[in-house]
């Protein structure tokens, strides 16, 4: 029996990492929001690795935080160990990564949602989306509630029609024993959404007491922890250690002998898996010459003995999993608590979305996270935030919020999705950005906090703090060009010991800082009037000076692209009617429907000549409108 629930403005389907950010953003921006989840006990679940961050993913978390999202704060609050990856390889690729207490993270996020004004959480399953012509009318739940709404944000993760594979056993179901959502998938197909089938996997969890830690390498966190959140005030501390183990020829032999039992190799799985996240059987087949593969053993929380085996995802039968794990030094007596499995699920072709993450054909329908073909908690959260912001802004009659590629990894990720689409689950990487030196994790606040404040997600306090920091940076930048450092025996001794060429003449401190290897750590003792300034400000000054040339070069690229991006393309263009475009370009443009000339140029199959034709077409159309 159906009954009518109170009307809301936004329904968010799914309370994973995307759904949380989407719901919080829309509620904070003043929209009455319902968050539907199949289980209240799985809010903010981490069904795969118990960690947040990593290369480029850490950047995303910092960006989410700078815009006023929740993930960074939650990660800091519940972290077990933290490291900056890639130290010494350059500021653009420094990435924070933290082990997270999985259960505590869930508890924390659930509480945040529960206490958010305008936000209502309901344990129920969406089964149908109803339209009024091409506009969202409402959502029907399994229990028969019909929720009238202006917008729906689908953040259903890997639950759509999901099927789990462990060896020859397979069943319909989601991660961690939860059900699969088949009816909802069918409802989306009925709306003519283009769904595809993707595949991913996760390794086994084992009991801590069954591991011989004496045989493993230890991996510790950083001494001084860099938090994810710019507003973090606490001194964060490492609480656990992680461990490294290695596979060997015996492990590989067992896997090779049992390959035919893997549903991946026997053809039962049809979904497309990610190249960057190969199962151990994939690694052994594809990289046959590697004598060993590395695995990380990571605690899942402080109140559990479960340990996660990063690097060992598999879809082989349970008995084979036990056999091959027990060939590994340190895991000879390992007890599996949850088996590794592969999961296949329906997801949307993101080419059907605008950069606002709204569907091109259904007004008020948004998608975020794995539903859009990505993989990863951070990628999901980033999209959830943007979908939430846009859904709310549209309802409030405000302009759309699209981050250009040059502003952020969030913008890069979404642009990749809606412009190029994806043929496998999409993971963010630093290699995906052409503006890497501009998009650093350390300057995410400078790039995005003003925007977050303007939208209304960053509060005045956080914004004022940011403005103070900005002022301090510019003060320090002008100060160091007034300070003269004179050569001295002590200074040169130190320079030479660090492989820096000697200082022969007095030089401005600012100019000296431009030299590779020369930092505040060496110079500040020779600056009599050195004020007491925080390390993050010194870091900004140093990076800005040292990479000045590169930063300028990248900014020129940004400028060239910005010109094209200011030329908007109306959404209702019929590209097939523009005869002067090449046929391939017409087809691609009709599918992608770019919002501006810059995006058009990034579509594969659209060349600069086509964009030139479009710019003339735009002008002609503009001229016609003038009359």
């Amino acid at each position, binding site marked *: 029996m159906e009954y009518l629930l109170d009307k809301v403005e936004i329904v968010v389907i799914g309370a994973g990492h995307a759904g949380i950010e989407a719901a919080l953003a829309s509620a904070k921006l003043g929209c009455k929001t319902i968050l539907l989840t199949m289980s209240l006990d799985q809010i903010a679940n981490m069904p795969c690795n118990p960690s947040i961050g990593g290369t480029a993913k850490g950047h995303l978390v910092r960006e989410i935080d700078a815009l006023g999202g929740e993930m960074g704060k939650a990660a800091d609050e519940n972290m077990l160990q933290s490291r900056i990856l*890639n130290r010494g*390889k350059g*500021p653009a690729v420094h990435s924070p990564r933290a082990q997270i207490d999985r259960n505590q993270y869930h508890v924390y996020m659930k509480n945040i949602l529960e206490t958010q004004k305008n936000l209502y959480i309901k344990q129920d399953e969406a089964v149908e989306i109803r339209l009024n012509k091409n506009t969202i009318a409402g959502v029907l739940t399994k229990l028969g509630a019909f929720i009238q709404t202006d917008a729906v944000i689908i953040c259903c993760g890997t639950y759509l029609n999901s099927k789990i594979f462990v060896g020859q056993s397979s069943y319909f179901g989601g991660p961690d024993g939860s059900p699969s959502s088949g009816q909802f998938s069918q409802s989306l197909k009925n709306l003519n959404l283009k769904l595809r089938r993707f595949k991913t996997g996760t390794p086994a969890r084992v009991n801590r007491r069954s591991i011989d830690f004496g045989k493993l390498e230890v991996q510790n966190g950083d001494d001084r922890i860099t938090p994810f959140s710019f507003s973090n005030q606490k001194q964060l501390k490492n609480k656990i250690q992680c461990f490294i183990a290695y596979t060997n020829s015996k492990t590989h032999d067992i896997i090779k002998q049992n390959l035919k039992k893997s549903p991946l190799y026997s053809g039962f799985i049809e979904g497309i898996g990610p190249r960057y996240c190969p199962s151990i059987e994939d690694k052994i087949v594809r990289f046959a010459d590697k004598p060993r593969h590395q695995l990380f053993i990571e605690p899942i929380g402080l109140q559990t003995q479960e340990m996660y085996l990063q690097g060992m995802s598999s879809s082989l039968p349970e008995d084979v999993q036990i056999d091959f794990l027990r060939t590994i030094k340190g895991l000879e007596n390992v007890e599996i608590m949850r088996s590794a499995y592969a999961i296949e699920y329906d997801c949307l072709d993101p080419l059907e979305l605008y950069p606002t993450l709204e569907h091109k054909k259904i007004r008020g329908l948004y998608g975020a996270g794995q539903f859009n073909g990505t993989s990863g908690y951070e990628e999901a959260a980033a999209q959830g935030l943007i979908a939430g912001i846009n859904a709310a802004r549209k309802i409030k009659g405000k302009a759309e919020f699209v981050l250009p590629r040059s502003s952020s990894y969030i913008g890069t990720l979404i642009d990749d999705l809606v412009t190029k689409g994806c043929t496998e689950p999409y993971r963010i990487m630093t*290699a995906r950005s052409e503006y890497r030196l501009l998009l650093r994790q350390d300057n995410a606040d400078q790039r995005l906090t003003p925007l977050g404040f303007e939208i209304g997600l960053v509060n005045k306090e956080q914004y004022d703090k940011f403005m103070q920091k900005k002022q301090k940076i510019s003060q320090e930048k002008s100060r160091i060009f007034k300070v003269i450092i004179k050569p001295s025996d002590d200074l040169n001794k130190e320079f030479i010991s660090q492989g820096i060429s000697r200082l022969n003449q007095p030089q401005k401190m600012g100019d000296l800082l431009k030299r590779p290897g020369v930092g505040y750590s060496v110079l500040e003792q020779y600056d009599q009037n050195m004020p007491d300034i925080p390390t993050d400000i010194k870091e900004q000054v140093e990076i800005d000076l040292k990479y000045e040339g590169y930063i300028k070069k*990248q900014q020129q690229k940004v400028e060239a692209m910005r010109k094209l991006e200011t030329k908007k393309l109306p959404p209702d263009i019929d590209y097939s009617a523009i005869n002067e475009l090449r046929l391939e370009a017409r087809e691609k443009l009709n599918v992608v429907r770019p919002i501006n000339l810059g995006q058009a140029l990034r579509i594969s199959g659209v060349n600069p000549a*086509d964009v030139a034709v479009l710019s003339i077409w735009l002008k002609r159309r503009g001229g016609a409108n003038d009359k």
Partner: protein
Amino acid sequence: MEKCIAAVATPIAPSGIAVIRLSGIDSIKIASKIFRPVKKNLEMLNGYTAAYGHIVEKEEIIDDGVALVFRAPNSYTGEDTVEISCHGGILIIEKVLELCYANGASPAQNGEFTKRAFLNNKMNLTQAEAVMDLINAQSVVALKAANAAKSGALYKKIDNICKNMVEIDGHIQAWLDYPDEDIDLVDSKNVAQELGMLKIELEKILKNYRLGNLVKSGVKTVIVGKPNVGKSTITNLLSGREKSIVTDISGTTRDIVESEIQIGGLAFILFDTAGIREAQDAVEKIGIERAKDKLEEADLILFIADGSQNIDKTELEFLRKHDKIPKICVLNKEDLGILGQKINVSDFSCVVKTSCKKPDTIENLKQKMLELMKLNSFDCSAPLIFNERQKIAIKKAVEDLQGAINAIENGLTWDAICVSIEDAIDDLLELTGEISSERVIDEVFSKFCVGK
């Protein structure tokens, strides 16, 4: 106004006068660096004013001509524009364009001047479609040229270098994006060395740039054959000079005799070589070795045979090594009657019969030589522009590689080094329209075992 672009506005062919047009920001300033008017500086001139002067590179005068200055919005494009009229030799056109690009102009895209004219309201609405058609038509031409180039040896070479760069960058990226995986450490010395080698390869291409070579230094034409088949006679007839000594005694030409001729505006350097046979003495032996060496650098081979005699298979054997070089089989002594030679026509681009006594047969040979070279590498219309872009792209890649090497030597970090390597990849990929990040990411996943 948009950035300054430059291109030749008249057809690129040997002609009396050629016009090179610069348009956009700083176009007058850039033109003033390469064009010295006899009186005022170009930058002082008003719109619609012409000045006579010299085209100069540093202080050296390249040519003389006239520069016309247009000031925005009163020009074809609606932007500041300079039109330099110079002499119409291909060499000169190429040189002037090179100077424009070296001083800050970019090569104009197809139809770009007209596009700018439209966008700056210099054309009415009805002309818009014509402009779009024009751009489209030209992009088809460019595409054809690109496709033609793709099958060429030069493209393959560049593509190979590009692949090497992607491989290096892919390794660094895998190492940066997957710091926890056991990926081989990136060694800065190795990378610098490998990049240095690729840079040298690119520089070689620039140096040996085929079209440039042909136009600038002429088609290297090596004349070979058995002794006493008439190589020197044909050389002399082609050049119209008695440079090689002609006798009835076989083995007269012992060293390589060089002469230059012009056929239809294209220069050919003729190398008359010693007849190839078992040498009779040490001096002749050296001559024969030199003849064989010369074949290595030939752009064109004229294989001369005595048409009145049967061709010995051994005569052809040494040519087999050079199957990529266009070859003309010249059957000489046609007046003595042609025998039924067993020539495998497919070994040659064409077969020409000549007689020293009939000048028109020599004229025919000249035409065949010109046709063959045009066909193979030399088209007077679009490709020169296309190739000019190619050259700029390669030059930029060389600069960016140098930037990467400098960054490594100065101890900069890998994120910055990668930016320069990727710029270099982008420079080369511009020729095929691919995007470097896609190639690099594919490389990461195909070569490295990364992931959870």
